[in-house]
C-alpha cells in the first residue's frame, strides 16, 4: 500500500507524458483558434496577399524607399538624433502582432505596418537606413521603458492621455482613431452604441476602452480580457455579445475573420496616437518637425494607403494636427 516512487523511472515517464501533452495542447489550441484564412484580395494589393498580410507590401516598400533623409547638420545639432545616428539603428518599443500597424512577416522577419512605417521612416531620416531594432512592449511597461531610456521611442498605437503625459513626452499625434463595435455576423440586435445597454461587452483590460464604455454605455456589463485574440474569441464563442475597442484594432480582426462584423458608427472621443519619448529631451521638437514635413510632402498619406487604407476603403484622411 505504501509505495515509493523510483525517481529515475518517474522522470522518463514524465518526459514522455509531457511530450504527448504538448501535442494534445497544440491540438486543442488549434481547434479553438480560427483557421487562418487569407484576407480578401483588395483592389490595389498586388504583392500584399502573398504572406497572408493585409498590407500592400510593394507599396509599403516604395514609401520607405522614397523617405527623406535629414541634413547631417540637423542631426548633429540634436543630441537625441545624434545618438541614434551614431548607433546606426533606432530602438523602437512596439509590438509585432498588430495586423495593420506593426506585424512581423514570419517568412522574411520584416515588420511592416503604419506604426512600423513611421518608425522606419524616422530611422531613415536620421541614419539614412530604415533600420529599427524592435523591443516588445506591453501596456504595462511602456512608461517605464521610456523613463529608463531602454528605447529611443515608442510607436505602438500609444494613446495620448493626460496621465501618461505626466510621465513621458508625446510627439504627434500622428494618427487618430475612434472606437467601434464588433459583433458576431449573426447578431442583429446590436446596431449602435445605445444597444449595448444590458449586454455583455468585452474590451481589453489595459486600454482606454474601459473608461469609454463607462461613459458611452454605462449600463453595459463590461468584461475585460488581456488581449485582442481573447476578446475576439469571447465574441465568437458567445461569451460576450459585443467587443468595443479602437476601430483600428477591430478592422484587422474583421479583415481576418469572416464570422464577425462591425456595426454602427465609430463613436467616442477620437483617440490620438502619439510617439512616446523620454520626457524633457530635445527629441520632442525634432520628431514633431519631422512629422510635419512628412505629412506635408505626402509620405504620410502614401503610408496610410499602403497599410490602414487596405481595409478602410476611403481616401486617406487629413493627418491630425500636431501639438507644438
Amino acid at each position, binding site marked *: *500500500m*505504501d*509505495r*515509493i516512487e523510483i525517481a529515475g523511472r518517474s522522470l522518463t*515517464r*514524465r518526459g514522455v*507524458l*509531457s511530450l504527448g*501533452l504538448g501535442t494534445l*495542447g497544440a491540438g*486543442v*489550441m488549434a*481547434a*479553438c483558434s480560427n483557421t487562418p484564412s487569407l484576407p480578401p484580395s483588395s483592389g490595389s494589393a498586388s504583392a500584399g496577399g502573398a504572406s497572408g498580410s493585409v498590407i500592400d507590401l510593394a507599396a509599403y516598400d516604395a514609401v520607405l524607399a522614397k523617405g527623406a533623409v535629414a541634413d547631417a547638420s540637423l542631426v548633429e545639432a540634436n543630441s537625441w538624433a545624434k545618438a541614434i545616428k551614431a548607433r546606426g539603428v533606432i530602438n523602437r518599443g512596439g509590438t509585432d502582432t498588430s495586423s495593420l500597424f506593426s506585424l512581423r512577416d514570419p517568412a522574411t522577419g520584416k515588420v511592416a505596418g503604419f506604426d512600423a512605417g513611421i518608425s522606419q521612416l524616422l530611422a531613415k531620416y536620421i541614419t539614412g537606413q530604415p533600420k529599427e531594432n524592435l523591443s516588445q512592449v506591453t*501596456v*504595462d511597461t511602456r*512608461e*517605464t521603458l521610456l*523613463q529608463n531610456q531602454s528605447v529611443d521611442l515608442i510607436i505602438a498605437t500609444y494613446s495620448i*492621455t493626460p*496621465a*501618461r503625459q*505626466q*510621465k513621458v513626452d508625446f510627439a504627434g499625434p500622428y494618427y487618430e482613431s475612434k472606437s467601434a463595435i464588433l459583433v458576431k455576423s449573426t447578431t442583429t440586435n446590436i446596431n449602435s452604441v445605445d444597444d449595448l445597454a444590458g449586454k455583455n461587452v*468585452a474590451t481589453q*483590460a*489595459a*486600454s*482606454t476602452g*474601459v*473608461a469609454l464604455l463607462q461613459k458611452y454605455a454605462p449600463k453595459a456589463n463590461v*468584461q*475585460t*480580457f*488581456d488581449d485582442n485574440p*481573447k476578446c475576439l*474569441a*469571447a465574441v465568437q*464563442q*458567445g*461569451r460576450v455579445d459585443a467587443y468595443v475597442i479602437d476601430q483600428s484594432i477591430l478592422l484587422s480582426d474583421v479583415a481576418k475573420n469572416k464570422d464577425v462584423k462591425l456595426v454602427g458608427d465609430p463613436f467616442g472621443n477620437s483617440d490620438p496616437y502619439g510617439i512616446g519619448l523620454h520626457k524633457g529631451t530635445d527629441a520632442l521638437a525634432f520628431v514633431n518637425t519631422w512629422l510635419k514635413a512628412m505629412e506635408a510632402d505626402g509620405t504620410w498619406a502614401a503610408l496610410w494607403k499602403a497599410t490602414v487604407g487596405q481595409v478602410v476603403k476611403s481616401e486617406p484622411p487629413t493627418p491630425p494636427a500636431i501639438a507644438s
Partner: protein
Amino acid sequence: MQELFTTYFAELLAGLWMTARLTAVSFLGSLVVGTIAAAFRISPIVPLRAVGRLYVELFVNIPLISLLVIVTFGLPDVGVTFDLFTCAAVSMVLLGGAFTCEAIRTGVNAVSVGQIEAARSIGLDFFGVLRHVLFPQAYRSVVQPLVNVFIGILLSSSLAGVIGVKDLTLQVSEINNQAALGLTAYMIAAFAYVIISLLAGWAGARLEKRWRVQR
C-alpha cells in the same frame, strides 16, 4: 501614489477580495481533489493507481496560463461554457490538486508500514485504514508543504486576470492604465501578496506545532 488610496481604494479592495475568494475556493477544491487523487494513487486497484498517476503527471506539467486558456476558450468549442470565475477556479483546482496529492502522498509515506499492518490485522478495510490511520497522520505531517501549495495557488491566482477575472493584479493593471502610476501600483499589489503569504506561513507554523504527531 496617494490617489491609489483615495480614488481607487474601492477597486483595490474589490481586487483583493476577488483574489482571496479565488484562492480560498481553489485551495479548498485542491484539498478535496488532492485527497481523492492521493487515495487513488495508494489504492490496491491498479487502474485507479494509473488514473491517479496520470492525473498528477499531466497537471503538474501544464503551465497554469495554458490551462486557463484551454478551459476558458477551448471548452466552449466542445459545448461546455462555465462562467469566468468557475473557469479560473477549475483550472487552479486541477493544478493545485495535483500538487496537493503529491504533498499528501509524502505524508502517507511517513506513516510506518507496521501501523498499516496492525490496522489491517484488527479488521479495517482500505477506507478504514485511510480514514483512521493514514490520512489523519498524513495531513498533520504535511502542514508546511500544504502551506506551500496554498502560497503557490495564491500567487498563480494573479494569472486569472488573463481570462478577465478581476483579481488584484488585473485591478492594479486597470488602475495603472487609467492613472499611469508606473511601478507604484504593482509594488502595492506585490506587498499585498507578500503579506498574505507571510500570514499563511505563520498560521501554518502554528498549526504544525499544535497538530504535530508524537512518535
